[in-house]
């Protein structure tokens, strides 16, 4: 784009699948026969499928100023088959999607010194908790106790770093 302005970019595709299973058995008895033996089992099967698409572009002006922007879109589809210790079975399914932007700027005011600022949003899809199997809730009620909502957070950073003359000192802020 000319000597004053330079553009670099990156784009990517992320595809994944995961099958998870958990089987547990609790065996409780009395050595002296004071109470009958209790054998309880639980099982969980979780199937996840997901795709993520991202792109990022960075403009560099006069080899001193970097301005970057990026966007990632995630989609995950999750199925769960949960059987609790009381024998109640639940088949649950849900999908989660989110777009996560990112912006940053950096200025190199000297060859070995720069200041920067960035803001980005992170995202983790929700899902189902295989450990919440203790109580025989009815279908519909299960969903609230076993479903984990997706989470996101904003992250902002500002700072700078540099190296002094003759490389005798350096700083990070």
């Amino acid at each position, binding site marked *: 784009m000319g000597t004053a302005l330079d553009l670099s970019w990156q784009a990517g595709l992320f595809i*994944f*699948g*995961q*099958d*998870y*299973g*958990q*089987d*547990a*058995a*609790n*065996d*409780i*008895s*009395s*050595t*002296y*026969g*004071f*109470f009958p033996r209790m054998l309880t089992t639980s099982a969980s099967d979780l199937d*996840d499928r997901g795709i993520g698409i991202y792109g990022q572009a960075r403009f560099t002006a006069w080899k001193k100023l970097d301005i970057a922007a990026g966007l990632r879109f995630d989609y995950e589809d999750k199925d769960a088959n949960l059987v609790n210790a009381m024998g109640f079975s639940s088949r649950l399914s849900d999908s989660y999607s989110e777009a996560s932007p990112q912006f940053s700027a950096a200025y190199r005011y000297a060859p070995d010194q720069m200041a920067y600022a960035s803001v980005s949003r992170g995202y983790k899809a929700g899902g189902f908790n295989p450990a919440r199997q203790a109580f025989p809730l009815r279908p519909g009620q299960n969903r609230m106790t076993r479903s984990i909502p997706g989470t996101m957070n904003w992250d902002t950073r500002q700072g700078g770093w540099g190296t002094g003359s003759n490389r005798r000192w350096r700083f990070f802020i």
Partner: protein
Amino acid sequence: MINISSRPSSERWNVQAEGAYGNYSYRDLRASVSSPLLKERFSLNLAGGYSGRDGYTDNDLTGHDLDSRAAGFGKGQLFFKVNDQWKIRWIVSGERDRDGDYALGDLGYIRANPNHVNRDFEGYTHRGVGSTTLVVDYAGATVDFSSISGGVWWKTHSLTDLDYQTAALANGGLYAIRDSTEHSIS
């Protein structure tokens, strides 16, 4: 963000080995060998090791230590340079763990006897992990391309005491154990 990069090819044949030994019979052995680029196309990288120790907590009922750890692991890489633009890397790794039981017990007993429990059942946690990754890189004049495909398989089997005490008349002869298995492929 955690970025873990596999070891690149070395410029010459490189063989390393190291070992450590400590109290609680701690032992750690690991070794690696990596080749330079052979015939301008291939390189090989192998690494593996074993690490283990005895448990920190003793079970006074049996005299055994309870929470020992032992793990063997290995990793291999094969690098293939097709030409100046295309490069392929194949990575295979595995791990096998044979750990002791959780060091849990009656709180009053542990407070009176730190690092000691009194239980009538001793379990374990066994774990196996395997993974493989294929990395294909293309370096063009204006655009670079990278493809990373991988799979991970793991399985964990835990058997443990559930009541963490000894069956006695005072607790009705309670004897409880938990057997759980987790497995995943992705």
